[in-house]
């Protein structure tokens, strides 16, 4: 691979095979989709806090058809919830997070010129882009976008005539998701093979930064679980479009009995959640990796328990495949089977606790630098604990069935998966921005972004646990017909207030990001005094990453504040001194 081959505008910025550019493409697409998804949540929160009230903003966005006189149509409400979940889970926290940091960090941190296959990498982005376009088009079809929830349970998703969103919107959702799965698989293949084959001299697996370990394991989970979602979707497409009965049976619509017999919607749930639960870790693991790296750098301490951290990642990945039933406790599951899934689910608490303990031990007595990235990292630890604790309740079938269809679950998964992962993503962006663009992001805006986000996020999701315990059902367009929930209106208004402020403050991040690309202060080569290889590459962007030879690695990446060392960091490229032992 040549270091200085001639590039045109198209090969450099559009059909690029340079992993760094592809990472930026994933990041910016993910950010734009994040804005769309978050805006949707703010808009449907208006309906939840003020059901049936008129808002000019709703009419402005959705027109007379979907928000007559400014009141959100129930079908559009379902569509917004569906698309919000789909966009945030897959487009932002899967592709936006993994796509960005796997592409950006793998070659730079393992010491490679690029990915094993730059072409497959480019294809991975363009499949993702095509998926994005198809999904966005679905927002504008006459019957509205998909509205069966991000989990697309049949029969709503399998019968085009069920509700408006079950029509063309659902077809486009399925096409977009198929393109997305292809993108994820192409990316995952490349990540695994690159990490296995292209590590520079001296970069043994035991010297890999935890970011790379996390991405490596995430890619393995993706390769094992996404194809199952594909098989699940294939059967759904056959039911929808060709009249088979895999998931459908004994259905009457408008007084007319449909021909479907012998199908089972529970079968769909088994197949869906076999992906669905590993998907939680596809989202979380890269964030765990980023947090480990950023925390160690800014604590000026080695990450506590490196091997235990790797072991915990592997254990979480393994367990993620045998817990899917906990999403199905209320499907009439055999109680014994439920207890098995309870047991396997609660086992996940062990490696998760190992990670939390190690994070806290890393922070203990550290000389912490409170950069915006570090604040988001600490924020991650906070939400990982808070959300993890409610996971213990939901993992227990006896407790789960009481709150399963309530806001308790919404609060839980938004905190443990949504917030944690998005904090990991923010931490990664603030930390590696200088490497991406050669400039620094504004710190003050970063602090403002963190604190308002942190307060608002808890303001949104913490009260949801109480709503759930009070029995407020999730997914409903309105609860105003149930007088027992009248007393909860104030809480819903508070949640919406925090959601609006929390949403607005993200604009500060977006401004900071784009402004800093062009006007941020220039970065030095290694602004955080970090040990990993990417900071030895020149600031100027070049395809091939290093001029001349790729550096050789001599030590692990966490030699911070090593006793006897001249500085509080020792880059991985620095040979061990005579008599010096490796960590």
């Amino acid at each position, binding site marked *: 691979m040549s270091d200085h081959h001639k590039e045109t505008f198209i090969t450099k910025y559009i059909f690029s095979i340079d992993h760094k550019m592809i990472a930026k493409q994933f990041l910016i697409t993910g950010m734009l989709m994040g804005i769309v998804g978050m805006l949707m949540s703010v808009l449907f929160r208006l309906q939840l806090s003020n059901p049936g009230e008129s808002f000019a903003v709703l009419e402005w966005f959705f027109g007379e058809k979907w928000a007559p006189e400014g009141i959100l149509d129930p079908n559009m409400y379902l569509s917004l919830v569906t698309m919000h979940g789909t966009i945030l889970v897959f487009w932002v926290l899967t592709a936006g997070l993994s796509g960005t940091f796997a592409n950006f960090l793998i070659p730079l941190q393992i010491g490679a010129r690029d990915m*094993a*296959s730059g072409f*497959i990498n480019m294809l991975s982005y363009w499949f993702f882009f095509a998926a994005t376009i198809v999904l966005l088009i679905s927002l504008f079809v006459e019957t509205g976008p998909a509205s069966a929830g991000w989990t697309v349970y049949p029969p709503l998703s399998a019968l085009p005539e069920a509700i408006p969103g079950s029509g063309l919107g659902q077809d486009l959702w399925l096409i977009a998701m198929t393109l997305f799965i292809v993108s994820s*698989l192409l990316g*995952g*293949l*490349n990540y*695994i*093979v690159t990490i*296995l*084959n*292209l590590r520079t001299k001296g970069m043994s697996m035991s010297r890999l930064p935890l970011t790379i370990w996390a991405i490596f394991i995430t890619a393995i989970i993706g*390769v*094992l*679980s*996404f*194809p*199952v*979602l*594909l*098989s*699940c979707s*294939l*059967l759904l497409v*056959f039911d929808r479009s*060709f*009249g*088979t*009965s*895999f998931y459908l*049976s004994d259905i009457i619509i408008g007084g007319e009995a449909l*021909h479907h*017999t*012998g*199908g*089972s919607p*529970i*079968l769909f749930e*088994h*197949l869906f959640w*076999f992906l669905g639960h590993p998907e939680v870790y596809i989202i979380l693991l890269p964030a765990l990796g980023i947090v480990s790296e950023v925390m160690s750098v800014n604590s000026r301490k080695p990450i506590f328990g490196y091997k235990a951290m790797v072991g915990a990642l592997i254990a979480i990945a393994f367990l993620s495949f045998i817990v899917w039933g906990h999403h199905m406790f209320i499907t009439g599951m055999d109680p014994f089977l439920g207890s098995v899934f309870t047991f396997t689910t609660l086992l996940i608490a062990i490696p998760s606790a190992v990670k939390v303990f190690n994070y806290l031990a890393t922070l203990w007595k550290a000389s912490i630098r409170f950069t915006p990235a570090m604040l988001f990292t600490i924020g991650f630890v906070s939400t990982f604990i808070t959300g993890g604790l409610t996971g213990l309740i939901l993992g227990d079938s006896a407790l789960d069935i009481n709150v399963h269809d309530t806001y308790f679950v919404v609060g839980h998964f938004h905190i443990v998966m949504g917030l944690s992962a998005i904090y990991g993503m923010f931490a990664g962006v603030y930390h590696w921005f200088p490497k991406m663009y050669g400039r620094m992001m504004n710190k003050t805006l970063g602090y403002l972004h963190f604190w308002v986000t942190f307060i608002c996020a808890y303001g949104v999701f913490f009260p949801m646990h109480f709503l759930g315990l009070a029995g407020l059902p999730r997914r409903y367009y309105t609860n105003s017909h149930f007088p027992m929930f009248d007393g909860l209106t104030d809480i819903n208004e508070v949640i919406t207030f925090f959601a609006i402020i929390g949403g607005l403050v993200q604009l500060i991040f977006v401004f900071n990001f784009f402004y800093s690309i062009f006007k941020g202060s220039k970065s030095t080569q290694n602004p955080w005094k970090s040990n990993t290889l990417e900071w030895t590459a020149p600031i100027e962007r070049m395809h091939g990453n290093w001029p001349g030879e790729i550096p050789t690695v001599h030590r692990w990446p966490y030699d911070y504040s090593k006793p006897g060392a001249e500085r509080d960091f020792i880059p991985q490229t620095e040979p061990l001194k005579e008599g010096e032992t490796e960590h």
Partner: protein
Amino acid sequence: MESKLKNNTSKQLLWIGMIGITMFFAGLTSAVIVRSADHGWERLNNIPQWFWYSTFAIVLSSLFLIIAKKQVRQGISPTPYIFLTLILGLLFSYFQIMGWGQLVNDGIFLTGEKSHPAGSFLYVITLAHLIHVLGGLISLLVTTIKSAQVKYTKENYLGIELTSIYWHFLDILWVYLFVFLLYSL
């Protein structure tokens, strides 16, 4: 060194891709297991005779490909054997389509009022496999042409290696699916 690395990465990409395909079919076959364990499941007890012929064809095709690989290692042109594999692959596809025809004649349909999940599973699983075979046939065609153009040497025959890994995989996958369908539907 560079070529060894390329060989390794190409093979690993293929192997991991095949793991993904395996999971895809694991999803479909476990769907049959889960569904058949529930009430209202009707067994077919009718696997078309043609599927026995196609099984024979694909197993035989794999044997020819093994010979082709041995030939290229010894510096002998493997073209005839790769071509034979391609022909047997096409024959496999033909037998599969004939098998579907037999199913229709026997009143087992993919969709519609007379269809049932067991029959639909049979069609969808065999169709999904055939789509993967299509990829293998394209690969065999390209390999045959390249082999005829003497693009492979006994030192460099990565194309044949990759094609044969994938084709053997499709063979083993089909044998698994066939036995599975035989005993579960």
